[in-house]
């Protein structure tokens, strides 16, 4: 039997009869937490979020309470803005979609609470352009909330005022990066900003202090306020608190989204039990654990994971991929990251060079083009992989791919630099033999399915 899900965020999402209407939400206890929150001093909410140990669900896993603490409300004289990052653009990720399409009011409630805690009176939901329907749902939900005074002036008689608007993106991955998002929202090309000096909490939207949080993160805030930070922190493991929604796609029998407490389930349990195993009875070859920018993990490799012992000291234990528990820190210890929770699975028939080529094409397409290493390097890597996959590989290409990637990561304006070079670094490092074979033009790999049926 597969381990049962623990649905906190997606509690109602797939319940039969549960709709996006405000009445449905209200009949399930909706907006009660908001009432509680509005009776609390804002700083107490921030405190609860700090105690909860909540880490951002957008990709970087940054502690939300710490982020909120960056704004000094004693000194600040500028307006504060709250931005909800609903760009959901990391390939392999489809969790925010579930919230927006199935339980929009949960997000709105989480946002009003978060905005209140951060003294924001204007907030935007930056939703990816492709979620046209999602934007509609949110617009309607916001109108309902406004009508019932969960939004607008003097919310529920508290004297607190907030407006939330929906802003639609238009097909640019880089708008998921928080400063790219801000530029986009300001009506410009989504060029991420240099940090320093443009940290959102200091010089964010319209050069004012701004909090950017992921959809799922903001929903968690609602539950933290509801149950209290300490109680919430009991879900999951220390420093890896709360639940996470793992999005599984690729070569499993039952792809989908599954919510579990952090650390409560291993890769093996998730893929073999929850997701019904690898398709066609094939063997697991590789997993990308946190969206396509995360480093790929090889199924037959052992990973050295530091483990805290009873006495507080740490020991290094060797673990197979399948035994690694899904949380923030253990996945990070493999050298990869749990990122946005997008788990992409590849079975033994997959040609890893082709897979990387697919990913590289994504990044070459999505680079904003602002800074030299990423702009030039992402397309170069894509072109090399095209050449390698179409029979023009050379023995020196693996090394060159690595060197190009190494010249990007850590040297760019935004973390897209890492996002585009980590896959290259890890694929080449983990599956070097496939690259070499291809570059030697050996036919032994013909059993591998071509990923793309590129007839043209």
């Amino acid at each position, binding site marked *: 039997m597969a381990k049962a899900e623990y649905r906190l965020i997606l509690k109602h999402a797939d319940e039969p009869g549960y709709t996006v209407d405000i009445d449905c939400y209200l009949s399930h206890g909706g907006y009660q937490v908001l009432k509680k929150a509005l009776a609390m001093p804002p700083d107490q909410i921030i405190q609860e979020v700090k105690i909860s140990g909540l880490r951002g669900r957008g990709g970087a896993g940054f502690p939300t309470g710490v982020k909120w603490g960056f704004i000094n409300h004693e000194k600040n004289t500028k307006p504060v803005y709250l931005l909800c990052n609903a760009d959901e653009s990391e390939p392999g990720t489809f969790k925010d979609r579930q919230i927006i399409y199935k339980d929009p009011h949960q997000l709105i409630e989480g946002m009003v609470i978060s905005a209140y805690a951060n003294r924001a009176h204007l907030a935007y939901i930056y939703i990816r352009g492709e979620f046209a329907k999602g934007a509609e749902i949110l617009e309607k939900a916001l109108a309902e909330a406004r009508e019932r005074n969960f939004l607008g002036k003097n919310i529920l008689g508290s004297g607190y005022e907030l407006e939330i608007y929906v802003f639609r993106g238009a097909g640019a991955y880089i708008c998921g990066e928080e400063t790219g998002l801000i530029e986009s929202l300001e009506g410009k090309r989504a060029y991420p900003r240099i940090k320093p000096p443009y940290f959102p909490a200091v010089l964010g939207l319209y050069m004012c202090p701004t909090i950017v949080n992921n959809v799922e993160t903001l929903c968690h805030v609602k539950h933290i306020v509801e149950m209290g930070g300490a109680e919430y922190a009991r879900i999951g493991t220390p420093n890896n608190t709360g639940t996470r929604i793992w999005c599984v796609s690729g070569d499993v029998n039952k792809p989908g989204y599954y919510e579990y407490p952090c650390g409560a389930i291993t890769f093996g349990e998730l893929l073999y039990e929850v997701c019904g195993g690898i398709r066609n009875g094939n063997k697991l070859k590789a997993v990308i654990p946190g969206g396509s920018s995360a480093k790929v993990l090889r199924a037959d490799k052992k990973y050295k994971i530091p483990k805290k012992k009873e006495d507080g000291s740490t020991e290094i234990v060797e673990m197979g991929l399948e035994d690694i528990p899904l949380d923030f820190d253990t996945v990070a210890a493999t050298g990869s990251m749990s990122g946005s929770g997008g788990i992409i699975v590849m079975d033994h028939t997959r040609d890893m060079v082709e897979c990387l080529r697919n990913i590289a094409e994504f990044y070459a397409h999505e680079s904003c083009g602002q800074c030299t290493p990423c702009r*030039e390097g992402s397309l170069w890597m894509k072109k090399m992989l095209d050449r390698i996959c179409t029979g023009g590989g050379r023995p020196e290409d693996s090394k060159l791919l690595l060197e190009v990637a190494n010249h990007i990561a850590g040297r760019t304006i935004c973390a897209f630099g890492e996002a585009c070079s980590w896959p290259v670094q890890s694929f080449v490092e983990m599956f070097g033999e496939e690259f070499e074979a291809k570059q030697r033009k050996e036919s032994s790999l013909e059993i591998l399915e071509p990923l793309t049926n590129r007839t043209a």
Partner: protein
Amino acid sequence: MSALIKNPFNHDLPPLEAPLVNVQLDGQWVKVPKGLNIIEVAKRFGKFIPHYCYHPKLSIAGNCRMCLFEMGMPKLDANRKPVVDAEERPVINWLPRPQIACATQATEGMAIRTNSKLVKDCQEGVMEFLLINHPLDCPICDQAGECRLQEYAYDFGKGRSRFVEEKVKKPKRVDFGPRIILDDERCILCSRCIRFAREIAKQDVIGFVNRGSYSTLTVYPGRVFDSNYSLNTVDICPVGALTSKDFRFKMRVWFLREAKSICTECATGCNIIIGSRENIVYRLTPRVNEEVNSHWMCDQGRLGFHYIHSKKRVTEPASHLNGSLFPLEWSEALRTVAQKLMEFPPSEIAFLVSARLTCEELYLVKKLMETLGKGTEIFSEIIPRKGVADGLLRSADLNPNTKGAIGIGIGKEGRRIEELKNKIRAKEINCLFAIHENPEEVGIQEDILSSLSFYVWQGLIPGPAVHKANILLAGASFAEKSGTMINIAGRLQKLHKAILCPGRAREDWRILRDLLLLVGVKERVFEKINDVFDAMSKEIDLFESLSWNTVGDLGIDLSQKLKNRSIL
């Protein structure tokens, strides 16, 4: 510092009250103003951090990533006190990631490495990236010789390309504006030109379109980048993507001789470099002077020099006799002029002098008038030129040395032009000496000039009534002479001779000096322009205690003196 143009940014100038902080620069502890940009910190100590997108007067873009350096901060102990080593020096925590120097400001205790292994690797990486899609057509590129891509490729690159894929194709020879051609394949997308257009020229018509490696610099369709400052983008473009239509393909830059001078197209006196070869001026480019033009100049000033090579120039002294022009020897021409000037009573002589002359020339004119006047004041006037001040650099006064003329005491700022006209008509003035001015320009037409008994014209390009002149003296253009001028803000600045006068034309101060000798001033012979300046400084109190050598390349502020004399 107060350039006449208000730059929105001055990253190279720390705020005056900035305290000094200690930073470790490649192992050496030095003191620098807090907040100073790291590129500038390095520069102050003779180190060069390569950069493309950074420009001290534009907003920071941080996009080229050429200026990456290694940064460290002092290691702090539990009490936030710096940890020190055996030699009592703070221990540095080096950040694993390189930082961009252009967006980093000096703070206390900061450690900087500009040439470590990591830094070099970063520079090589960026150079390689910049070159992969670059056409490498240096042999036909106008920027060759002053291209930062070419320079850095030698200094910071690996000197080889590992790129075997197809390059991205982009538009070539794009009409960027009336004076500029853009080659998009050469553009490294540093956005300097865009920031200049937005932040300084305030003509927001250029920008990037498309995305990623396909990002392309463009002018909004149907618009033109025709700002009067547009050519500054050609200067600041680090590569050969933007080229001046005027200069394109005319001359390889490494053949150009450079002379420091100033623009004489308006009273601002932007500092320039005159680029010439074999007595031909090919271009003017701005020279940095934070008191005047900062890094910039206007297009009109930049392109306004072509008249100096005009076919219409008078290049030898001559006389008019019965409607025909006869070349003269200088000695003969000057003797005739001197003799004639001495024949008229001082009250019948008038000097129409240009405020485009240098102070030295004006001073010699003044001496000539004094000698001829023998106590009576000789009539003199200048022709004012009015333009429109644009709030950036251009002044409403289009004469470069009006303040000098007033300070030396030539003319009445043009208020007496009518009077001059009437006096000639009434035959009260019978001898006119026009120096670098055509009286026709202010309505002293042929018929009026006809009533003169003697008319000497000295200058470059004569007007339609020049046949009324009895003697023509061939003078020199701004590029052919040295001297000083006082700009609109009261700054005394130097011109330096870049080329020789064409034909038998002569520097004006030499012409005037010889006339002085001929009218009898013998006590002093000026051999060099320095001598004239130094004499002037003794006689004219505005220049008191100055000498030619003390007026440096950036000029000297005389505004207080001018204010005291109500000239400013």
